[in-house]
């Protein structure tokens, strides 16, 4: 079973915002809502780093945990999606998300916050795959077209990798070994857990503690 993940390689990201544009165009995202954005650290200084940030589809998603109306669900491929017909736009998920992924259109009556919108890993939502209703609420469903997210496929430097976690991790590992640096994957541990998470303590530690 595939487990969909994103990796952004900060050694390669050139802050072109191609991913942001691809996402906006692919899903016809309204003005003011950014499912994906590029964040630059130490902008303008030598050694600045940029990363493309969106919903990481966390293994243990905090947005799912705090939603008072239980509108989130996880697909078999590990993509975190939500039902806009259930969402009440309360914004709890926005406070819980470590990546600032949930977005709220403010075009409602009296400037009220609308229903939450976020990256779907181009997997649509709980409507018929590829239907007009799905497109209007969640955008294109590229996964059901046998394609990967538009942002990753459009990335000119292949800084943003998207797809089966095993495949993208292998690609990243090959790069790091080839260039001999830049093994840090920002957000990976937060989204998918660190390699040590959940492993039992070593026998020596157990012996010391007891």
């Amino acid at each position, binding site marked *: 079973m595939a487990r969909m993940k994103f990796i952004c390689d900060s050694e390669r990201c050139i802050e072109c915002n191609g991913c942001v544009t691809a996402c906006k165009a692919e899903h016809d995202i309204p003005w003011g809502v950014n499912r994906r954005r590029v964040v630059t650290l130490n902008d303008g200084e030598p050694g600045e780093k940029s990363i493309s940030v969106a919903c990481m589809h966390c293994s243990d998603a905090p947005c799912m945990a705090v939603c008072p109306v239980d509108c989130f669900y996880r697909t078999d491929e590990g993509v975190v999606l939500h039902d806009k017909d259930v969402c009440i736009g309360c914004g709890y998920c926005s406070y819980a998300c470590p990546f600032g992924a949930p977005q709220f259109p403010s075009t409602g009556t009296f400037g009220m916050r609308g229903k939450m919108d976020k990256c779907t890993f181009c997997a649509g939502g709980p409507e018929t795959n*590829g239907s007009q209703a799905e497109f209007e609420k969640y955008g294109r469903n590229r996964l059901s077209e046998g394609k990967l997210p538009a942002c990753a496929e459009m990335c000119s430097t292949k800084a943003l990798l998207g797809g089966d976690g095993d495949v993208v991790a292998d*690609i990243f590992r090959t790069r790091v070994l080839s260039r001999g640096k830049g093994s840090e994957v920002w957000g990976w541990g937060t989204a998918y857990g660190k390699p040590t998470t959940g492993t039992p303590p070593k026998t020596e530690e157990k012996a010391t503690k007891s």
Partner: protein
Amino acid sequence: MKAIVIALALAFGLAACEKTQTAPSARKPDSKQWEAAQNAFVAPGWKSGDEASWEAQLRKRASRQNEYASARARE
């Protein structure tokens, strides 16, 4: 005054005894991703409804992001 304090204490105390809500979620079930979209943009090379072929298609597509492999193949 004492009665008001007792009434308030009872109100706060009983508020903690709310019954656990067990109502099922109202969200709709989603269709599987390997059921192809009904449009003209479906990529060729896999069969709708066949999970294995869909996964193979996505793996192949994800592997294309590795330009080290494609450069080696061109050599």
